[in-house]
C-alpha cells in the first residue's frame, strides 16, 4: 500500500511538471498546446535511449530530455508562427500523434511498440522502498525547482510582456515587444519542462512505449491546469496533484459498484473527472488560484 502511495505521488509530480509546462505555454503565452504528450514522449525517449542504450550516466538523461524536447518545441513553434487558437491546437495535436506513430513504427530507432525496457532508475531499483522514496524526493525537487523558476518568470518584466503577447499580439508589437521571440522562448522552455517530466517518468517506471503517450494525458493536464488556475504556477501544481488524487480515488470508488464491468467503471471514472471540473469551474471560474496582477507601488 505504501509503495502504491509513493507511486501515485511520483506520478502526481510528473503531472505537476507537465501542468507547469502547459501553464507556461498556454496560461502565460496563450498558445493552445495540444502537443504536450508529444514533448513528454520526446523527453522520455531521449533520456531512455541515452541511458539504457548509450550507457550514459543516468543524471545526463534529464538534461538530454530537456534539450531534445526544447529543440522539438522550437521546431513546432517556428512552423506554426502564424497559427493561433484552434489552428495551433490542431497542428500541435498532430505533432503529438506524429511522435507517437514514429515511435510505434520506426522500430530501428525506437524499438517500435515494444518500447524500451530496462531503463536504469536514478537509484538502484533493488533497494525497494528506498528506490521509491528517493525517486519521489528527486521528483519533488524537480517540481519545486520548476515552480520557483516559473514564479520568477511570472513576476519578471519578461512574464509581463509575455502575458501582453497572450492578450493581443498586435498591441504588444506596437508596445515594442518582439512577439516571435517571446512566443518561441516560452514554447521552447515549456517543451523542455515537459521533456524533463518524460525523463523522470521513464527512469521511474523503467519502461517507455508509444501507448503511454496517448492524447488523453494532454487532456488530463488541461483539466488539471484549468481547475488549478492556468496562469499561476501554484495553481498548476495544485491542480495536478488534485487530479491524480481524484483519479486514484475514483479507482477505489468504482469498486463499490461491483455490478459494473471494468469498461463501465473506466467510463464512470472519466465522467467523474469531467463532473469534478464542471463543479470547480462553476464555483471558481478562473480556477482555484486565479491570475494575480502586479500591484502598483504605494507612494
Amino acid at each position: 500500500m505504501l509503495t502504491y502511495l509513493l507511486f501515485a505521488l511520483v506520478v502526481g509530480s510528473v503531472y505537476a511538471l507537465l501542468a507547469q509546462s502547459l501553464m507556461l505555454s498556454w496560461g502565460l503565452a496563450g498558445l493552445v498546446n495540444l502537443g504536450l504528450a508529444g514533448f513528454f514522449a520526446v523527453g522520455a525517449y531521449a533520456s531512455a535511449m541515452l541511458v539504457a542504450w548509450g550507457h550514459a550516466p543516468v543524471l545526463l538523461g534529464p538534461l538530454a530530455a530537456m534539450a531534445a524536447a526544447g529543440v522539438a518545441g522550437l521546431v513546432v513553434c517556428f512552423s506554426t508562427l502564424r497559427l493561433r487558437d484552434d489552428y495551433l491546437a490542431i497542428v500541435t495535436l498532430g505533432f503529438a500523434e506524429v511522435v507517437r506513430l514514429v515511435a510505434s513504427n520506426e522500430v530501428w530507432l525506437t524499438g517500435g511498440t515494444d518500447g524500451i525496457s530496462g531503463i536504469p532508475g536514478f537509484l538502484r531499483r533493488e533497494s525497494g522502498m528506498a528506490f521509491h522514496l528517493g525517486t519521489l524526493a528527486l521528483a519533488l525537487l524537480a517540481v519545486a525547482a520548476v515552480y520557483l523558476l516559473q514564479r520568477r518568470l511570472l513576476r519578471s518584466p519578461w512574464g509581463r510582456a509575455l502575458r501582453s503577447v497572450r492578450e493581443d499580439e498586435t498591441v504588444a508589437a506596437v508596445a515594442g515587444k518582439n512577439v516571435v521571440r517571446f512566443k518561441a522562448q516560452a514554447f521552447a522552455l515549456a517543451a523542455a519542462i515537459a521533456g524533463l517530466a518524460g525523463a523522470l517518468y521513464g527512469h521511474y517506471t523503467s519502461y517507455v512505449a508509444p501507448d503511454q503517450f496517448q492524447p488523453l494525458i494532454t487532456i488530463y493536464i488541461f483539466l488539471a491546469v484549468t481547475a488549478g488556475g492556468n496562469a499561476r504556477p501554484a495553481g498548476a501544481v495544485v491542480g495536478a496533484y488534485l487530479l491524480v488524487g481524484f483519479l486514484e480515488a475514483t479507482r477505489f470508488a468504482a469498486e463499490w459498484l461491483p455490478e459494473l464491468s471494468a469498461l463501465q467503471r473506466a467510463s464512470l471514472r472519466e465522467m467523474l473527472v469531467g463532473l469534478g471540473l464542471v463543479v470547480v469551474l462553476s464555483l471558481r471560474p478562473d480556477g482555484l488560484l486565479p491570475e494575480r496582477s502586479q500591484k502598483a507601488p504605494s507612494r
Partner: protein
Amino acid sequence: MRTAAASLPGAEPPLVAENIRLSFGGLKALDGAGFQVRPGIVTGLIGPNGAGKTTMFNVLSGLLRPDAGSVRFLGRRIDGERPHRIARQGLVRTFQIARGFPRLSVFEHLMVYGARQPGEALIATLFGSAAARRREAELAERALAVAARLRLSPLLDHPVTALSGGQKKLLEIGRALMTEPRMILFDEPAAGVNPTLAEEIGDHLLRLAEDGLTVLIVEHDMALIERICQRVVVMAQGRTLMEGGFDEARADRAVQDAYLGGRA
C-alpha cells in the same frame, strides 16, 4: 525639449511620408499619399471615411508594408520595418477602438509599454539583473507620474476591463507616454467620449506638444481639430489633397468637394 536640429529652418521634419501606395486586391487604399509632420505641434490627419487615414497609420506604425513609397522617421527609413522596431525608435501609436490586454491591470498596461527594460530578456530574468530592477523602479515611478497626470491614479490596480470608455482613452495616452516617444500617432483619441472628456483629451494632446513631442491625430471631431491642430493634412481616396492650416483647408475647394462626396 525640442532638439536643436528640429528647430533649424531647412532641417527635415521628424516624419516624412512620400508617395505611399498600398492596394488590397483591386482596391487602392493608398494611392500615392504623402505628407510631412512638423515637430512640437499637433497635426491633424483628416478626410472623409475611406480616405485611407487608418491604413496610413498602419503603414506608419509597421502593421502594413506599403507596395511603394517611403517613410522616414527622424531621418531613417522605417517603411517595411517590423512594428516593435518602429516603436523602439520612438514612434508609437494608439488604436481607434481602445484595444488592450483584458487580463492585465491598469498599472501593468503602463509598465508593459515601458521602453528599454533589460528584464524582458529571458537570460536576465533567469539569472537576475540589477539593471532590470533599477529600470523597473524607474518605470514604476514614471507609471505613477503618468497616471497622476491623466488622473488615473485611483484605478491603477483595477483590471482594465473595469474602466469606462473615456478612461480607456486616457489610458491609451498614458501607455503611449510610457514608451518615452518622440512622436505619437493618435487614432481617434476622442471618439465616443463625452464632450467634457473630449476637451480634456484635447488639452492633454496640446500639453504633449508643448513638452516637445510631435503629435499626429486622426479625428472626426472637427471642433477638436480646429482647437488643437496648428496644421492639418487632408486625405481623400488614398491621396493627399492638401497640407496647411485648418482655415486654409476649410476654404480649399478640393477639400470641400471631397467632404461632400464629389470628385476628389
